């Protein structure tokens, strides 16, 4: 009988959507941060929103890829960000009139990279993790020989756009929220999205159910490349220029926000709102630790402990039958 009530209350916690946990975590860390600092609540929130935009953008692509099933991951995102930012800045050449062309060029570059990744995975049957790692080396070389490592400045209009705010909220954040909503609809309400989810659970079964598994995998890697490229172009605008190493941060964080947000690493289950929770949570952790004045060693130790603790709390005990 007590067993019954216990399982009932556990059921209630389970009923909380997964993505809420990451938001709760972010909220908690935020409150802690401005309490310690004694000021800057709003500033922290705005900063977190501004930077989460980029993490979420690449996180969306990574999420679709990871949802394709175990072993699927895109490690070429950082290199793509670097190359695409260089391509975009070079095409834009600092002129406002060329912004759209620059964005287009970056997108094409991302799409080509995604397609290349898929070719490696499909035609050469290379496990995605190694395929995208290898291609990231190649992309780095292309980037070096294309941009010579130069840091080219963005056109003023692009830079202004990335800094602009609407009612105090960064415009880029609003745009990315809209993008997330679209992604969520695509995931749950289109055949493509369903196919991604089905493939992640059981690729053979997806094929036998008549879904176009391979086309979907291609689209997904292309999508990831394109989003990384878009992120690269906008990031170059936001941080005042392209650089090849600009994306390095996003290797771990793109994966981290996806899994912290409740997307299953085993594939087949994805969560878009959780990406925002995960991104805000990650940024808030570094805000907290920087605010508290920890050196880089302690900062890392605490980051690790907080991540593990957070994930352990949100986890659930599932008995093996």
């Amino acid at each position, binding site marked *: 009988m007590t067993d019954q009530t216990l399982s009932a209350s556990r059921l209630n916690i389970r009923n909380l959507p997964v993505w809420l946990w990451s938001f709760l975590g972010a909220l908690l860390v935020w409150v802690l941060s401005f309490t310690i600092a004694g000021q800057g609540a709003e500033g922290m929130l705005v900063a977190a929103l501004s930077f989460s935009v980029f993490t979420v953008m690449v996180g969306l692509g990574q999420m679709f890829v990871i949802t394709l099933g*175990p*072993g699927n991951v895109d*490690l070429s995102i950082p290199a793509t960000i670097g190359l695409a930012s260089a391509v975009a800045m070079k095409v834009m050449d600092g002129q406002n009139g060329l912004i759209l062309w620059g964005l287009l060029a970056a997108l094409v570059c991302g799409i080509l990279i995604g397609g290349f990744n898929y070719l*490696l995975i499909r*035609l*050469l*049957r*290379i*496990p995605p*993790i*190694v*395929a995208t*790692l*290898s*291609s*990231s*080396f*190649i*992309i*780095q*070389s*292309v980037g*070096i*020989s294309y941009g010579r490592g130069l840091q080219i400045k963005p056109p003023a209009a692009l830079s202004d756009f990335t800094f602009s705010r609407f009612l105090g909220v960064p415009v880029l954040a609003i745009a990315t929220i809209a993008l997330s909503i679209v992604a969520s609809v695509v995931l749950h309400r289109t055949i493509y999205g369903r196919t991604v989810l089905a493939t992640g659970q059981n690729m053979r079964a997806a094929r036998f159910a008549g879904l176009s598994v391979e086309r979907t995998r291609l689209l997904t890697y292309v999508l990831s490349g394109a989003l990384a490229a878009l992120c690269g172009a906008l990031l170059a605008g936001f941080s005042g220029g392209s650089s090849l190493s600009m994306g390095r941060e996003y290797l*771990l964080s793109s*994966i*981290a926000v996806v*899994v*912290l947000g409740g997307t*299953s*690493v*085993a594939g087949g289950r994805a969560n878009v709102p959780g990406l925002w929770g995960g991104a805000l949570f990650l940024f808030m952790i570094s805000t907290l630790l920087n605010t508290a004045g920890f*050196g*880089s*060693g*302690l*900062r*890392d*130790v*605490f*980051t*690790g*402990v*907080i*991540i*593990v603790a957070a*994930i*352990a709390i*949100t*986890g*659930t*005990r*599932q008995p*093996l*039958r």
Partner: protein
Amino acid sequence: MTTQAVHSGRAQNLASSSRQRLLRGALPAVSLVIVLAAIWYFNPRAISYFGLNLMLNLAIPVALATIAQMCVMATNELDLSIGAFVGFVACVTATYMPQEPLLAVLMLGGGVLVYMLAAVVIHLRNVPSIVVTLGLSFFWAGLAVLIRPIPGGAAPGFLRDLMSFQPPLIPMPVLLAVLIAGTVHLILMRSSYGAVLRGVGGNARAVHRAGWSILKAKVAMFALASVFGILAGMTLVGVSSSADANMATGYTLLSIAGAVIGGAEFVGGRISPIGAVIGALVLQLASSALNFFQVPFLPGGRIPQEWQVGAQGMFLILILAARVLISKAEK
């Protein structure tokens, strides 16, 4: 008589699938031979006692890290913290081992405990290992920075001696690689409990139903992984003679790639210790030896500086693409 005919047909088919398995198993070895042959072609001096020693001594820590990764992969988990952990071990070894060996041993023992604890959290809370080990990677990196805020320290004498020992005829790294591969093969592939451990990756429910504790098995595998991680860090210090907190961050990806080249898969508990060690050797040679290839049609006869990074990517792709020949026959 008729059933005989039926069965012989089936047996043939079974034989072909196990032949493919064998072929796939031999693939890492084949790629190693190809790489060595290429090196020999461009620089015959390198394939000598002295040359192999120099080229391969840094492959030993990579091989050990790869084995650690493979142990974790065998339970369908992934360890994103192995690089940071090896760095942590290296810092502990170079900082405390020579003067305060007891403290060093205690800290390394603590490392094993944390790994076991991670396995407990992953299993009992049913959370993805990727996130837990991602968190741990920060943890280890932070500890390493705290232990060694600036690079330095010294390798304990016994490690330096071990790594620079020159046995007759066979270079030490080759000897160590064989030893590692053989030992792990015995533990995981030939022992009776090893079968249970691998079974957890194949079908945890089945192993559970046969009365085994999945928790214990996972903890055992993680503990094993941490032991190999510790050996990786110690040998790394033995070769490089001092430590740097960031020195092994790349081992995470390297170990995954090495295990995959060696034939391990992300799910299903399919692993191969011998393959993993060979995979690590191939990777090591690829990353260092490749750029010394003389390519006649290139200006200067060498891979230009800006393409050297990309060349490694191509090389990885080429090695793995060889699988297609076999997989094609398979599907």
